[in-house]
């Protein structure tokens, strides 16, 4: 049976995107499957990346644009892999592509369809910090810059009001198509790359930390969006009431590490970055980083961290990360912890940022089942047969890169992606 020269990449974060462009340059056809309506992954949720404070959009947007304009790359957003049959060199893949209800070619992304939409929804992509319409793009600058309609919430599509055609009427290009149907696609591919990334650990269950109970407690990703100039507050650092500016902030490292049972590798740097952001925007604010071990695994990281320590934040050691307790007292958040002498100590702050652990992306167990590959006890894809220096999975022809394999920073994700490209090209060109 002949071998397919076509590669399927699942996940459009930095790892998936890098592989896409490289494979296309090497003359392969690529299909990029992304479950969301936009490509770019988690990187685009960050305003700036550590340690050089590169603007994330500036890093990623040219890559996104190149992918969208590359005729060898077929980008399938709102899509998921349903079934995989066959072997290395010759997989048959069934993909479910959900209807966007907006024509990708006709739409210019002018945004005229949002204002007339009568439905207002919570915007999950913005960490629930703002709202969106039933026809929406998750954030300004989303690529492809084409809205999607939430079929369950759209009054027309869910049957509440079949007369509601307000978005259609507002569109000057006839781009909105409320009769679009989900599609089943079948592809023949020679190799598959899993680059499905990570999600953040849900920390509502860790009751002592008060997340979900006290509005002043934020997750790291919520704070990223709060700081983002295309985020819910356009980068204005205010509390949930939309006006109060915090005067003191505690950033807690290693949140959920006991539960996940691994270090998430990026949080110390991300938390140092958050202290840097805060100090930069609120120069008078008192900032604390409460840590138990500082992990800075790159030649460039310590310098940044030391700079933050010297200028932006007071780093406090806590001797037992499971003994932290956050309560409310006199309108302030009281952060209780065990200090370097194992004594109960506390500080009072307006805002707490919890650097919660990274975990396998939602839906990775189903995907691992569909692909028929092994995962480790945490649910991350396990590289095999050697865990050492390998991007191959338990099934020949299927490779893994980025945080789908375990928590890691952007450069380590890109390195794995480039390594996976070497494996894929070796396989397909052999």
């Amino acid at each position, binding site marked *: 049976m002949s071998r397919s020269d076509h590669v399927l990449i699942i996940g459009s974060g*930095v790892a998936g995107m890098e592989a896409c462009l490289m494979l296309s340059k090497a003359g392969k056809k690529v299909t990029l499957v992304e479950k969301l309506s936009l490509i770019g992954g988690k990187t685009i949720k960050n305003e700036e990346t550590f340690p050089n404070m590169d603007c994330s959009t500036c890093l990623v947007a040219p890559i996104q644009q190149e992918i969208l304009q590359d005729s060898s790359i077929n980008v399938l957003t709102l899509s998921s892999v349903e079934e995989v049959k066959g072997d290395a060199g010759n997989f048959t893949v069934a993909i479910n592509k959900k209807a966007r209800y907006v024509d990708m070619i006709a739409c210019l992304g002018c945004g005229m369809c949002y204002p007339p939409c009568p439905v207002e929804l919570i915007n999950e992509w913005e960490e629930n910090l703002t709202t969106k319409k039933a026809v929406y793009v998750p954030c300004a600058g989303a690529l492809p810059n084409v809205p999607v309609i939430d079929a369950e919430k759209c009054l027309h599509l869910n049957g509440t009001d079949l007369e509601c055609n307000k978005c259609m009427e507002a569109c000057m290009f006839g781009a909105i198509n409320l009769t679009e149907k989900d599609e089943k696609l079948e592809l023949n591919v020679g190799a598959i790359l899993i680059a499905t990334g990570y999600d953040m650990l849900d920390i509502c269950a860790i009751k002592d930390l008060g997340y979900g109970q006290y509005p002043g407690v934020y997750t790291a990703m919520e704070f990223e969006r709060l700081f983002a100039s295309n985020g819910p507050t356009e980068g204005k650092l205010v509390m949930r009431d939309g006006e109060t500016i915090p005067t003191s902030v505690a950033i807690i490292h290693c949140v959920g590490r006991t539960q996940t049972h*691994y270090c998430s590798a990026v949080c110390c740097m991300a938390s140092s970055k958050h202290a840097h952001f805060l100090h930069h925007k609120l120069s008078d604010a008192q900032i604390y980083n409460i840590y138990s071990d500082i992990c*800075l695994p790159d030649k460039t990281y310590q310098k940044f961290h030391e700079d933050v320590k010297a200028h932006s934040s007071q780093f406090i050691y806590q001797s037992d990360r499971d003994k932290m307790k956050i309560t409310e007292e006199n309108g302030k958040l009281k952060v209780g912890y065990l200090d370097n002498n194992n004594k109960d100590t506390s500080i009072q702050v307006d805002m707490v940022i919890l650097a919660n652990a990274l975990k396998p992306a939602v839906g990775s167990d189903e995907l691992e089942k569909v692909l028929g590959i092994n995962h*480790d006890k945490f649910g991350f894809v396990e590289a095999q047969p050697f865990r*050492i220096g*390998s991007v191959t999975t338990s099934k020949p022809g299927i490779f893994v890169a980025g945080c789908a394999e375990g928590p890691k920073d952007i450069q380590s994700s890109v*390195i794995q992606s480039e390594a996976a490209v070497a494996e894929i090209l070796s396989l397909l060109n052999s």
Partner: protein
Amino acid sequence: MSEKIGIYVCECGPNIASKVDIEKIKQEISNLEDFKDVELVVKNHKLLCSVAGKKYLENEINENNLTHLVCAACSPRDHDTTFINVCKKTQLNPYLYQLVNIREHCAWIIHDKEEATAKAIRMIHAGMDRVLYQQPLEEKQLDSNPDVLIIGGGIAGMEAALKLASKDRMVFLIEKTDKLGGKSAKLKELLPRQGVNLNILHQKISDVQSNKHIKVFTNTELASIVGFLGNFEIVIKAVNNPNNTTDLLAGAVVVATGFELKGAASLDSYNITDTDEIYNALEIEEMLSQHGTITRRNGEEPKKVALIHCVGRSEVGYCSKICCNYLLKIAKMLKDQSAKIEVTEFFKDLCLPNKHDEDFYEQVKTRGIDFIRFKNMTVDGTNVKFTDISDAKKQLDVDMIIVGTAMIPADGAKELAELLKIDQHETGFYQEAHLKINPVSTNTDGVFVVGGAHGPAGISESMLQAQAAAGKIFTQLIPGQKIIPEVKVSEILEAYCTGCKTCLDVCGYGAIYFDEDKGISVVNEAICRGCGNCVGSCPSGSIRTRHFTNPQLYQEVKEALR
């Protein structure tokens, strides 16, 4: 042939059309006083980037025999390539086209329609002035050599060699010592999380040696290299006899020269005075590999061992990333050797960034090892005086000390950087082209850096980086495929160059060399990226970057500022 400029205004649906007066633009542009002798075609289209729009533009260029094209539309980030590709389908050289951004620069930011229209007209006028001064440029195609030179025969270099070597691609692997394997070949065992024993590493040495597409040169180092991606001319020399040289040709270079461990004798921050019973991790691994046990210099088994983390870290200014793990492994090996050996790990922070590290740490902890988090330390002989995290001053007498010292760049890193024209990070390790999104490439196209040469890295990471470099080479250097170098490059006008060499210093790509015979600087067009640094630095104004010449920029700016 007389000039005929086509000016096409894109409405971008309502995006441009509703915010500027398209008819007024057309009318004013058609009647510009300073273009009254030039034939103009001025038209508008609903959406030039659409399939229909592109076809329309293509037909317009052909039917009107346009000599120049100006598109007034959106940001070049969105559609410059789109219109360049349209030009390429026609007789019009794409460098005789100019995109004017009247969407982001006018329609989207100016509320007053009249003002937005006036600015759009001025910008289009500027684009027309510029386009007449533009010159057709032709893309060149160069043959490329798919072969690869790898410098360094450690785990990273061998991994890269094995991935790259094939019947279409020869690999030359040079190693300055007399054998392959590097530091990892000295190890006794790997971490449990690495999931393999050392045999697979030793296997790689014989795989490299028996691969007929890999030519290994031991006791050899780089003497000189010139050229660019696809065409490097290389001279290698014997380490002990510099006159014994060999010439090679290759299309890419992978630098895998590894690292060194900072010596135990230079541990300033811990005031270590006597290094008699102080060993670094590699010495312990070698001792184990050779004799099977860890012993003191007198041959006796140690009774009390202190393992000290982060030695030399404050001096070098970075975390070496792998020491916490290997010191845990050595603690385990000591306990494996004899449960009676008392082992204490002195650390400041534990850095365990792999998903399986925590498990290993928990497992080692159960072996009866003391973990002491310390703030300061002085080591006198084998007496360790320290302040612990609770600020208590304590001391511990041991009979052996094993240190996790900082990983530092290999000897000769600076000289090699100069030969290869690649940058060094302030730590002395080689600098990646972009830390985040281009981590194994360097500022010199075709030169890649992997493993310990890139920064502290363990075996696993070094192998992944080597594979990543192979991936990059597979996509940039395809056997039989031509290389198309940048067209918009700098050129030096021989007559004006005074030979001051200023441009040589500012060129970040090593694209300028000095012709001693003529006494002038010369641009190597295959390497030049057209950044323009040299143009700005040249005191005699003898350098220009194609497509961004002074007259072109002047024409555009003059009209834009009128």
